[in-house]
């Protein structure tokens, strides 16, 4: 199955590389630079939200406050960061899709990103259930902490892309 997905990705990468967006991102030095700046700001937005939620889940801050309320309150902020991160990341990818296709760290980053989004969605669902019941469930704590670790992995894999 993975081989079939992999074989389908190469033509897609070639298409993006030869598209107007791909050639523009490659030719314009400042388009890449500005997109990188937006990507970092998005990382700070998402990272700050995730770090705060994870610290609350671990009991390091806001011990008396229910985790479901904090998760629910910070969700729009984290979603904003995620939206900016994915949009700017797609533009950065357009700068060199074939280079990223061959980069192992990029593949790991994508896999971790998908896992982080899925775990984040599961955490949101658990928070909604806990909010209705007006009581925290240990599964929410586990999901929030796993999500924070996955996002840390996404960030580290992102830095490794430029090294290997």
């Amino acid at each position, binding site marked *: 199955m993975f081989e079939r997905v992999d074989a389908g990705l190469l033509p897609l990468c070639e298409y993006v590389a030869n598209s107007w967006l791909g050639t523009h991102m490659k030719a314009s030095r400042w388009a890449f630079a500005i997109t990188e700046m937006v990507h970092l700001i998005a*990382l700070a937005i998402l*990272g*700050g*939200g995730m770090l705060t939620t994870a610290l609350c889940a671990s009991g*390091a801050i806001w011990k008396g*406050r229910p985790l479901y309320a904090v998760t629910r309150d910070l969700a729009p902020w984290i979603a904003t960061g995620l939206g900016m991160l994915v949009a700017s990341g797609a533009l*950065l990818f357009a700068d060199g899709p074939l280079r990223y296709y061959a980069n192992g760290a990029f593949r790991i980053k994508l896999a971790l990103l998908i896992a982080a989004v899925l775990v984040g969605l599961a955490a949101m669902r658990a928070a909604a259930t806990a909010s209705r019941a007006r009581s925290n469930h240990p599964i929410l704590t586990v999901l929030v902490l796993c999500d924070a670790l996955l996002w840390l992995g996404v960030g580290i894999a992102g830095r490794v892309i430029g090294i290997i």
Partner: protein
Amino acid sequence: MTAVRRTILPDPPARRTEQRQVGGAVASILDICRWLADSGLATRLRESDNLFSALEAAHVIGIVGVAGTIAIADLRVLGLLLKTVPVAEVLTPLAKVAWGGFALMAATGVPLFCAEAAALYANGAFWAKLALIAAAGLNQWLFHHHLAREMARPPGSLSVAAPARWSAAASLTLWMAIIISGRAIAYV
């Protein structure tokens, strides 16, 4: 997906240096930068791709820690996030986390600077970043000055006065500018 684009710029001409008195001998900022760049630690960092990259990654994590948590505190002060939580309850623990992020940012930023000190001397974006960090620090001091009055209000207060809100808006803008100027270092 931030690709490593490390640019080693040529040393700037000596005539552009600002002279200052250091320990009785006339030394310029550029001389100090060159001395730092020639030090053993700086040379080792430049020659080791992995060490430099690890420091860069830790530097980014530090920036995310400080800017990300300060942004949440600022948005709370502006009444845009965590509206039902008292201001002091949000700010006190997040300030500790932000200081931790700042410590990581500074601890990794100093060796990163040493590695390319001579080149960074001529980099406008680097000086802009330092000036913006100083401005953010001053703003933070003013913020706490205003907030001290807020703390005297009844406990659990959900709103803050206008000066603290202006300070929070300035803080958000400054930290965004710090991230932008930091990234611009590789491009100017």
